[in-house]
């Protein structure tokens, strides 16, 4: 069956009490690529991610992943292919770190042994193996964030080695609370996930991270998509200065030659 492996969104709009938060957004995020959404505060970045994840009801003429309508997909089947990391995580019950990560395996029926192996693997990826028996409520902000990330990665981990079905990963500010080392580690993991047939759509606050690591950048301002494309083509001094209403300078990264923003 021919399957166009991408998240396709056309004319997505969302308004709340007469305020248009998203206005006719078109967006394509292909499997095998990571797409970063950037923009100033209140641009509608998180709202766009919530609309795609189904957390809020929006109108769109098309919202499909691999030719499947995201809205009509059954929740339990959808959970095997689509994983979401929200911005606010409010778990206040003392589960152990390992138990929280293991919740990512609930949609799958891959057996206890496989689940345990996946949990160990993602905890190693997120550098939280040493925290596995600590209580979530006792962790620091960055450790909690890495635990939630590990849970989301566990959800998208393939059930079998040869399983390369397309997956969609939606991340809202995945680098929040993370130190530089863990930010870099995370961006590498995200890149590896993307190459393994996953479409990654993430909101990033740090324009430099988006420029260095994302295959594609979508620029939002006041609910309108104002630019989309490769970081090197889209991100320039004029656009960024206008977007953030700031005096910004861009350079080129000495190794990757991608744009690099300096305040």
């Amino acid at each position, binding site marked *: 069956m021919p399957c166009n492996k991408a998240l396709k969104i056309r004319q997505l709009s969302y308004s709340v009490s007469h305020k248009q938060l998203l206005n006719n957004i078109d967006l394509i995020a292909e499997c095998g690529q990571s797409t970063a959404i950037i923009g100033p505060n209140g641009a509608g970045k998180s709202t766009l991610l919530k609309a795609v994840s*189904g957390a809020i009801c929006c109108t769109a003429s098309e919202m499909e992943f691999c030719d499947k309508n995201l809205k009509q997909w059954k929740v339990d089947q959808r959970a095997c292919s689509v994983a979401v990391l929200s911005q606010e995580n409010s778990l206040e019950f003392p589960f*152990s770190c390992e138990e929280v990560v293991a919740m*990512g395996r609930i949609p799958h029926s891959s057996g206890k042994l496989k689940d345990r192996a996946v949990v160990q693997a993602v905890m190693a990826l997120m550098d939280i193996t040493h925290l596995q028996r600590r209580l979530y409520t006792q962790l620091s902000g960055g450790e909690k964030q890495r635990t939630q990330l590990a849970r989301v990665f566990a959800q998208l981990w393939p059930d079998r080695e040869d399983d390369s079905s397309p997956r969609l990963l939606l991340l809202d500010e995945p680098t929040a609370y993370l130190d530089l080392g863990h930010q870099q580690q995370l961006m590498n993991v995200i890149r590896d996930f993307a190459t393994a047939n996953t479409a990654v759509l993430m909101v990033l606050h740090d324009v430099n991270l988006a420029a260095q690591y994302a295959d594609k950048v979508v620029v939002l301002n006041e609910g309108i998509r104002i630019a989309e494309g490769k970081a090197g083509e889209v991100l320039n001094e004029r656009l960024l200065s206008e977007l953030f209403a700031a005096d910004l300078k861009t350079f080129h990264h000495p190794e990757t030659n991608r744009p690099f923003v300096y305040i």
Partner: protein
Amino acid sequence: MLIPPHIVDKYWPFILLVAVFILLCATFLSLVHGALEIGIEDLWRWINGTGDSATNLVIEKLRFPRTLLAVAVGAVLAISGAATQGLFRNPLADPSLVGVSAGATAGAAIVIVLLHQANTGIWGFTFVSLGAFAGSLAVVSFVYRLASSRSGTRVSTMLLAGLAFTFLAGSVTGLLEFFADNEQLRRLSLWRMGGLDAANVLSVTLMLLVGAICFSVLYVQKNALNVILLGESEARHLGIRVNLLKRSVIVCVAAGVGLAVALSGTIAFIGLIIPHGVRLIVGPNHRYLLPLSAIFGAVLLVFADTLSRTVIAPTELPVGLVTALIGAPVFISLLRNKHYALQ
């Protein structure tokens, strides 16, 4: 937390066995103690079918149904509490938050004060029980409807609606109390304090059946109840049908607690304290929380009922009072435990 999750996981059958053993001990104590002391040898003769008829009668008609009712009511109150706390994502929630107890009290007050029916009944249930059950179901269904729209049920609205209906039902009860005579007032206040003396074969069977159904429905959804603690959207992203979960929890709580309150009066304390206490010991995972809550809820009520029958025998103390009197110190000692401060 006293026992780390991986240890609980490893020794779960053993922990469960110990808990069941404690319940059996409590049941045994309840059978032998009371206004009439029954020896171990009497109990043994009853099991063999060789006991004298007077003792057999006390065991079969009074002690045994009453103990079983205590087991079922205690277990149902505790698992309903655990499920409500999970649904509201708040360890301080309690089934009475959705108006079950207030509705039941109003229903009982209507029957006692307006209908003057205190001791009569049909099918082995007193009219007071039936009124209480109808009252609790009515209030919970109002609360649930108010909080539900086409897009689903809002837990925060349900909390506020529960509060509003609790006050409304409380005013109805208060108004009836104002017009009630002394006799009716005493009946109502005794009913409120709780008692298990209404136990008969039918009520016990019904309570056990409803308890077993509630437990099965909730235990099947143990993973969903765990995941909803992450947040409603997170649960949906993990493939949980959140609205179905909410509905089944509310129906279980309404039926289970409604029936428990109808048969034994308001014993509100167990639903709050038992799950909270169990959580302090084995953590919040519903796989362990639900069974252990059921067992320790049963233990607490059986134990409290035994005390209520024996302390000033032959007069019985209301079991609701005794439950709080022995449960609260245990809970306070758990709170004083230094591990709690770390959570």
